[in-house]
């Protein structure tokens, strides 16, 4: 059974792979945005590890999940502005990856 921190890190890796795949299809660079999101997920996982055992930890997990989704979604909007309509598929894929992991985070 993976820890919640491991689940978040895994989400970051999956999002990076998905975004990189789409970027290659487009012949465009998506690396800066993807890495930004992955770094953000790692930071949230680190913050979560500090909150283990504190009152309200479950709320902290949900807050971290929300923050990751907001960050990934915000980045997706910016990238969609700059590249191609196809990226909205990437954005949706990224979100669905995290959404699939939500039950493990709660």
């Amino acid at each position, binding site marked *: 059974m993976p820890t919640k921190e491991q689940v978040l890190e895994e989400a970051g890796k999956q999002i990076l792979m998905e975004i990189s795949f789409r970027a290659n299809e487009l012949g465009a660079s998506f690396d800066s945005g993807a890495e930004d999101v992955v770094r953000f997920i790692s930071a949230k996982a680190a913050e979560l590890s500090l909150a283990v055992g504190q009152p309200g930890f479950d709320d902290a997990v949900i807050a971290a999940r*929300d923050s990751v989704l907001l960050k990934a979604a915000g980045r997706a909007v910016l*990238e969609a502005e700059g590249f191609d309509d196809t990226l909205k598929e990437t954005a949706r894929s990224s979100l669905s990856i995290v959404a699939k992991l939500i039950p493990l985070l709660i």
Partner: protein
Amino acid sequence: MNYKALFPAAIVITVGCAGQTAREEVLVPAMRLASHGIEMDAEAGVNTLPAEIREANRAIVARFFDIIREGKDEGIRLDAIGSWGRVRELAELGVRAKLEDEIIGDEVASLLLGRISDFDKALRAYITRSPAMVD
């Protein structure tokens, strides 16, 4: 959302429209999901206010999150943006109150405050194209 139905429109969609599509299909759902926790924080903040202004502030909070969950572009741009500053203050007040009452720990509070900040950035990303808004 029926994405297949969007395909013919996607052929003629412009880059700018792609951004709007991402807003509607990705950003709004993310804000909608995050709204539940932030609303709880804001309600906790409302409960710390003097009784005579509590209901007015509660109405501001309720209206704001109704608009976010409705997800309509006009409502977000014209109405929600104007009240977000107050809602944010109340949410942060609520987190601090929960911390003082030892309902949550300090690291938990940090994550809750982080979510409020990230929601703020997402809302700004919704209304602007500036990359700085989500960094």
